[in-house]
């Protein structure tokens, strides 16, 4: 009897506790402050500045429509260009002093590697919105860190597949990448995948000019002497522009098959410098002339609006920014629903982000249980048309993320070694007819 009473009381207390937990309502804040790290100085501001403009454009619209569940979103921008330590202290300052609960960081893989563990410690949701490093989510499991786009593995495997499907008959390859983490890591993934799928290919030169190099004439002379069939460069920004221009000026680009997995971001700037037939990647499935979605009102409307505001077509960092913000809004919606209409805690939000399915400007993205986003990859070949003063992408192929990513818990460097040649004929690959 006595025992029953106690047990009953305990049960009641426990259920009351559970109930209070379940219905624990975070007071809906007056505004939602988010922090965004992006490059507004240094060479990477070619990505950072357009992405910042995109964020402003997006949040203006969102707030005009009432924000997230009636809460207005106000951004604080942090410049990634200040470098590791300073970035870290700015990040902490924004989180701790301004009480920011959601951070979007970063463009640079180095920044992402630095910030992810810090976000976990601070218990602030961090969306990896543009960086490519696959290592950050493979080496540790995070509760508060998610990525709303693909990683380098997906991007590089898709690039190899496109090259082998479009131009299978080559014997030699050379690489010219920037000498920093991305240049090295992307080549490692690319070359490992290539070795598995085409073991007889010979690497004739591995050149890693300084990050931010302004002159590639020596590299170009050497490549002309070596005459590789394929030249790969995962460079971006001013480095890529300079390399392409100097290669074009000296005729190298006509004598080798160039593969430029990040060059979607340089297409408009390079104008007519890029000849027809260069392989271009988009770091995702986003492209303003996306073969399926180009007339989709969301994509088309945004492209027009962005062009009117900035004078340029959106590049991949812009799409990634919108994707991260769309992901965040979708995450809040999901978390609010799960919380019976109440404003969620950061923990609940972080939980909702895992397993989330949402749509940015292009196809749906799914965030896996390890926080990694599954984003399709679009590649194409340059072709000049009368409609634009720069080449468009022709012979587009889209690779679903699922076929080009290491499974949860497996490291990419190990996984790429297990790729089978059948992947080249995978029926999930979407091909599109040439543009007329």
């Amino acid at each position, binding site marked *: 009897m006595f025992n029953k009473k106690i047990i009953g009381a305990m049960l009641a207390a426990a259920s009351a506790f559970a109930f209070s937990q379940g219905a624990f309502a975070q007071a809906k804040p007056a505004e939602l402050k988010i922090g965004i790290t992006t490059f*507004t*100085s*240094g*060479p990477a*501001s*070619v990505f*950072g*500045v357009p992405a910042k403009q995109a964020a402003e454009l997006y949040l203006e619209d969102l707030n005009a429509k009432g924000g997230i569940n009636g809460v207005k979103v106000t951004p604080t921008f942090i410049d990634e260009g200040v470098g590791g330590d300073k970035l870290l202290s700015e990040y902490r300052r924004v989180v701790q002093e301004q009480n920011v609960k959601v951070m979007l960081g970063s463009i640079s893989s180095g920044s992402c590697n630095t910030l992810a563990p810090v976000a976990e410690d601070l218990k602030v949701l961090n969306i990896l919105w543009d960086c490519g490093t696959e290592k950050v989510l493979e080496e540790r499991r995070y509760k508060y860190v998610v990525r709303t786009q693909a990683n380098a593995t997906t991007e590089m495997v898709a690039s190899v597949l496109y090259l082998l499907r479009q131009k299978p008959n080559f014997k030699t390859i050379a690489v010219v990448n920037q*000498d920093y983490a991305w240049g090295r890591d992307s080549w490692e993934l690319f070359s490992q995948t290539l070795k598995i799928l085409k073991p007889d290919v010979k690497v004739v*030169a*591995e*050149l*890693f*000019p*300084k990050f*931010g*190099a*302004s*002159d590639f*004439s*020596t*590299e170009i*002379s*050497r490549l*002309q*002497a070596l005459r590789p069939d394929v030249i790969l460069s995962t460079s971006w*920004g*001013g*480095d890529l*522009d*300079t390399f392409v*221009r*100097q290669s074009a*000026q*000296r*005729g*190298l680009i006509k004598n080798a098959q160039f593969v430029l997995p990040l060059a979607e971001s340089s297409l408009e*700037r390079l104008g007519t410098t890029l000849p027809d037939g260069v392989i271009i990647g988009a770091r995702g499935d986003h492209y303003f002339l996306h073969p399926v979605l180009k007339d989709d009102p969301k994509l088309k409307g945004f492209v027009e609006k962005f062009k009117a505001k900035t004078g*340029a077509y959106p590049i991949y960092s812009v799409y990634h920014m919108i994707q991260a913000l769309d992901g965040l809004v979708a995450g809040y919606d999901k978390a609010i629903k799960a919380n019976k209409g109440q404003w969620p805690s950061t923990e609940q939000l972080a939980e909702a982000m895992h397993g989330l399915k949402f749509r940015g400007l292009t196809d749906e993205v799914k965030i896996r249980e390890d926080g990694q986003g599954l984003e399709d990859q679009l590649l194409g070949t340059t072709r000049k048309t009368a409609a634009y003063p720069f080449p468009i992408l022709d012979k587009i192929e889209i690779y679903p993320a699922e076929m080009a990513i290491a499974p949860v818990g497996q490291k990419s460097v190990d996984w790429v070694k297990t790729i089978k040649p059948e992947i080249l004929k995978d029926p999930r690959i979407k091909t599109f007819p040439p543009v007329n």
Partner: protein
Amino acid sequence: MNQELFLLAVLDGISYAALLFLVALGMTLVFGVMRILNMAHGSLYAFGGYFAATLGLWAVSKGLSPAWSFLWLVLAALVIGALLGTVMEVLLLRRIYHKEQILQLLVTFAAFMIFEDLQRMIWGAQPYFVSDIVNYLGVAEVLGITYTRYQLMVLPGVALVVFVGLRWFLKSSRTGRQIVAVAHNREVATAMGIDAKRICLLTFVAGSMLGALGGALASPTTSLVPGIGAEMIVLSFAVVATAGLGQIEGTLVTALLIGLARSFAVYLQPEMEVLVPYLIMVAVLLFRPQGLFSVAQARRV
């Protein structure tokens, strides 16, 4: 490495060294006369490049022949050098000639940061590129390798003309000799009736023009991006320090040395490319801390 590749590496090295020399020359000239290491020299390089590109774009939009580009390149360097050089000398440097060196470094570095932001405000963050002149001049084949005539002839040519011209100017003209006198000993030169203030202004403007000329000449071959000035300052500092501060002939030899070493590295040991200039600098400074070409200085006091 066979003979052909050797020749190719030499050609690549020379065109690279030419640009490096122009920028380092301005830096070393300013140091020689004013004993100030101008960290903002990289900004002059960047501004020269951006301004030349702006003029070039304007000329293209007006439908002018690319041949005019030579005029724009030089004009951009002269205008930027005169403008920024005068502003910096009169407003900043004049006040710190007698201050401690560490303060001088900090002040010019601050100027560099300000210029960097200014540059982003004016030209934005997207890469700039105007290469009409390079396409206009066309290409030349050397041993089956295509080079642009611009890099093969224009860059080394201009560097050589500037070098010879500057040497002649310093040795034979009245102002040039005054500059040398001030460089040697400012107080004695002033006592002998030289207007050291004017000479300093003149030298600084000339040094700034050289930095801007380097940028302007680089602009047709490279993308102008934020941060390009910082890249250049580090490398030209390596040249200047290796040569010995204030050494004009030494700067030429060192720029060539570093340019050639770098291009040979690309052919033989590409991993070393980035490191080579600094390895040379360290090796030289270990044995000759005053630089390769500096002569031992008599104590002034």
